[in-house]
């Protein structure tokens, strides 16, 4: 064993020692109160990083997890950037925003969400495969991550689609504090094998074998453009984080005695001391410099920006085509023109074309850019994120809006975070489309309007198309976005044509915003009731305007925003101030919904007294039976009644 170890290149030993010394420095700085937050060290696991991250090519990429320092240093060599990052300095690899778990430099990315990085890495690798650049990638997970479902969704896809991704599972036998025998059933490599993924094994106590095995694995993935699952047995010699270690000290000591660097120190102290002194000096000197550096100013990180509204109004024109058809036409046109456009989704291939036929014929048109996927919302959303990070413009279809919950982690903890937590080095221009809404009798889990959960995600634009504007116009703006966008379509609008409303007493016009606001206003009367509705509810409310007037004696105007994550507040407020009444109608439930947001925003920016009202769904699951669905999702009668009760 010793012979084998001594055959290891001293370069590798020095690299591993540098990782260890940097992490020991972190622990020292932490105990001095100089680190904000937490730190997860990989002391004892360094050779996994050396073996895999250290043997990749520059064009390759790495996605790592919360225990990522070793991978980072081995891949980038940037110990200084890491030190500065953890010390919260502006010169840190993520500007001090991300700290220990959220690193980004070149093709290195890490995130602290267990499992979530696996599909992102798969998408990133798919992008490389599509580019045909022979670059591959590694995603590091721990044995604790084996409990995450998205891992298996992704393994299924990377095997089926032959995506060149190497999954390295660093098995340190503990999921945070819980020993593996409590949490883990069955065998680890069999899991990957079950998906038809080649597997391999190694350990950090035989680093030269591990390095050789890693080389083989990397070559396999690159040459065959297929995935591989590599299990690395290892042991972290420190706590999960800092002081949270309940492991048997004897067990830890046993592994410490097996640790290569410990043995190296004992067997060749002269070399060890020489290397250690040089490395420690290098680190100390860096830390002294870094401590004198500045932290980022808030205005470099965040400043409130508002896009000025373009209120040059132009008429809304009817289009004698159905909404679904118009979206499809836009996609076809763009797919033909753009090679970086990718469509993903369940059942979107020809001839089926998606549950609502929006992606009809796309896969026939350009099969290499259209992926019909397994039923794996989390994985395909993560893969879309990865594609977006790696130069593609993915349009992901989530078959029903209800299923967005399955994709939520990827939207909240990944897509919405990448740009900021990686200090604006990357953009994630992913587009996620989904149909929301009821009125089709699909019942409790296929009829929901979950918009309020989506607009609550910062740094993701949420757009709702409607039946007043050619959806192609809105999708043109979506296409140009550099950051994540969720597009809410509405099931009951798909079959409707654009602006077929018989509203002779209203002027229908839209402003010049990139996401236009549509306004329906009386031809020559001053409105006495300002209504805001969007998406599918806009169509319903437009159809009700005359009835609202007849019954309530109030002259309504209707504002229909299409960008619902940033509202046309000034327009709405000015209108409500003039009319004195503000009604927001939405298909979702009112509590903490869009109506709450709009009314609050108007109220806090006005000094006028405005009579305001929300109308939304009742807070119960949407019933399938039509009579009840019509009441729960406000129908004409309920809307009129509520308006009369409130305003008359």
């Amino acid at each position, binding site marked *: 064993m010793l012979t084998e170890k001594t055959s290891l290149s001293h370069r590798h030993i020095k690299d591993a020692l540098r990782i260890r010394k940097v992490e020991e420095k972190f622990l020292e700085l932490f105990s001095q109160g100089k680190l904000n937050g937490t730190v997860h060290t990989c002391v004892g696991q360094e050779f996994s990083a050396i073996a895999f991250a250290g043997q990749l090519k520059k064009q390759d990429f790495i996605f790592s997890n919360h225990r990522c320092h070793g991978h980072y240093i081995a891949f980038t060599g940037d110990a200084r950037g890491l030190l500065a990052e953890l010390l919260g300095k502006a010169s840190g690899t993520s500007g001090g925003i991300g700290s220990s778990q959220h690193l980004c430099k070149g093709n290195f990315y890490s995130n602290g969400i267990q499992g979530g990085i696996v599909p992102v890495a798969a998408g990133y690798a798919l992008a490389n495969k599509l580019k045909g650049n022979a670059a591959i990638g590694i995603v590091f997970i721990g044995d604790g991550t084996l409990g995450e479902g998205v891992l298996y969704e992704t393994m299924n896809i990377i095997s089926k689609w032959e995506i060149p991704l190497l999954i390295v599972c660093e098995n340190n036998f503990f999921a945070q504090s819980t020993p593996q025998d409590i949490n883990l059933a069955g065998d680890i490599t069999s899991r990957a094998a079950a998906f038809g993924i080649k597997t391999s094994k190694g350990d950090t106590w035989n680093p030269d074998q591990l390095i050789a095995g890693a080389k083989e694995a990397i070559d396999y993935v690159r040459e065959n453009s297929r995935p591989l699952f590599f299990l690395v047995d290892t042991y972290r010699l420190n706590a999960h984080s800092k002081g949270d270690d309940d492991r048997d000290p004897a067990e830890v000591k046993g592994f410490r005695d097996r640790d290569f660097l410990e043995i190296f120190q004992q067997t060749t102290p002269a070399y060890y001391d020489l290397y250690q002194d040089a490395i420690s000096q290098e680190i100390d000197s860096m830390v002294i410099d870094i401590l004198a550096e500045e932290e980022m100013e808030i205005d470099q990180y965040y400043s409130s920006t508002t896009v000025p509204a373009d209120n040059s109004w132009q008429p809304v024109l009817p289009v004698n085509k159905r909404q*679904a058809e118009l979206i499809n036409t836009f996609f076809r046109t763009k797919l033909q023109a753009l090679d970086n456009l990718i469509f993903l989704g369940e059942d979107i291939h020809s001839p089926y074309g998606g549950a*609502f*036929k929006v992606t009809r014929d796309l896969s026939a048109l350009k099969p290499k850019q259209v992926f019909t996927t397994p039923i794996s919302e989390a994985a395909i959303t993560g893969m879309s994120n990865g594609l977006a990070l790696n130069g593609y413009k993915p349009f992901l279809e989530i078959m029903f809006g209800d299923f967005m919950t399955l994709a939520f982690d990827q939207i909240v903890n990944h897509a919405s975070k990448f740009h900021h937590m990686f200090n604006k080095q990357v953009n994630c221009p992913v587009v996620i489309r989904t149909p929301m809404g009821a009125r089709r009798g699909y019942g409790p889990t296929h009829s929901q309007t979950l918009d309020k959960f989506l607009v609550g995600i910062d740094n993701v634009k949420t757009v709702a198309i409607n039946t007043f504007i050619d959806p192609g116009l809105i999708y043109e703006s979506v296409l140009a976005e550099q950051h994540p966008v969720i597009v809410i379509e509405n099931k009951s609008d798909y079959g409707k044509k654009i*602006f*077929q409303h018989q509203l002779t007493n209203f002027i229908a016009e839209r402003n010049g915003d990139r996401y236009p606001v549509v306004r329906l206003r*009386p031809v*020559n009367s001053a409105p006495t009731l300002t209504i805001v509705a969007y998406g599918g509810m806009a169509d319903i409310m437009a159809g009700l305007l005359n009835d609202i*007037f*007849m019954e309530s*004696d109030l002259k309504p105007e209707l504002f229909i925003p299409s960008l619902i994550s940033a509202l046309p507040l000034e327009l709405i407020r000015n209108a409500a101030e003039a009319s004195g009444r503000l009604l927001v109608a939405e298909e979702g439930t009112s509590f903490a919904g869009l109506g709450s947001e709009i009314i609050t925003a108007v109220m806090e920016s006005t000094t006028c007294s405005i009579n305001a009202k929300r109308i939304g769904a009742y807070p119960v699951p949407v019933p399938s039976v039509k009579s009840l669905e019509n009441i729960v999702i406000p129908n004409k009668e309920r809307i009129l009644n509520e308006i009369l009760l409130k305003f008359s």
Partner: protein
Amino acid sequence: MPVLQEIKVPLLAVNDTTLTVVQLNFPNAQQVEAGDIVLVFETSKTVYEVVAEVSGYIEYFAEVGKDYAVNETVARIVSAVDQINTHPSQPGPTPRPGRNSPLPEIELQGETLFSKAAERLLVSAGLEKSLFRSRDFVSKSDVESLSQPVPVTTLKKAPGIPALSPLVPAEADPEKVSVQKLSASKRKEIEYLGGVQEGGLVSTLHTSFKTSGLQVALNPSLRILKNSMLPLIIYEVSRLLVKYPLLNAYYHDGQVFMYRHVNPGFAIDSGKGLKVLKVQGAAEQSLQETESAIVALSELYLEDKLAVTDISEVTFTITDLTAESVTLFNPLINYRNSAILGISAPDQVLETCMVSLAFDHRVTEGKLVSRFLGELVRRLESYLPGPAYKASKITCSNCLAPLNQEQNSIGFVKCIQPSGAEGYICQRCFNGF
């Protein structure tokens, strides 16, 4: 009629509640063979061809380019050509009018919409919808801004009988009663006038003024409305209202709103509907000007040429029933007024006329109203012809008894004394002891 195949709009996809007919493959009434494609629909995802299941004659009810709802019949195949009526007004589905027609952008091309509240008010105010031509929407306040609601003058009801009898109950015996529903306008009028009266604080004071010789004294000042007291009453009431602003006012929501101008209105109903015509600026007009205004407004009323301004913003209402055989009535206060003056028919025997002032007690009280009425009576009676003779200075030329001590109501008899001078003789001297 033996129909061999009925062709309805199919439900092909969840999105498509309507389909577009894009092709009719045969002329109407043409013979078709089983297997022929007779019609083509377009859906959101594809085109759908309808195949004849039988041979026969095709009859279309659809037009190319139009949308038809699922389950609508768009064509059928019949057994004989003479079963097909080629007349354009064929039975069958009618496409929704204008569904695909382009919409106007700015100009109002549709009809003016009236809210239900506005419709009710229009009916009760007797206004024409055409007043609002080219408007997009007409609300209640739009109507209010152009009209003044009409008061209703009612005969005094016998005590114990409710002013507004409820409709005959459903269980009423049709052999004993016949039921006539109130007209919509009457029901709305009831609802409408409730505004002030339902405050429950309406009181009415009555008084009378002498009319003996009044009209005779007045007529020389009138040009047309000889024998009418209305010009004088409007003339005097207007001047008084300047002095009594609380009667030229209205109550709303805990506040009294006093009109800055006096624009009394008089009720008229001569077969063209009950209306209140406004005499603009009456407090500044002469009696003759007031008379002219009444005449002019009445002519406009009779010729249906009243402008909205002629009947809007009436600040006080006068109901003149002197031409009716009414001895006393309680007028109902008009919307946005605090008082109304009713004039009953003069008593020909007593030569007096009853005037009644109903007032909103939330705005004013009886003391002020009685002062108003007292002052009005004094003003009206000031037009009575003054006595030609002073009774205390007339004495019997025979017994020298003064006329004012005469016990007999007949008075003295004028005579010519033996000297040739005019003199008087009392009844006792005239009749002899």
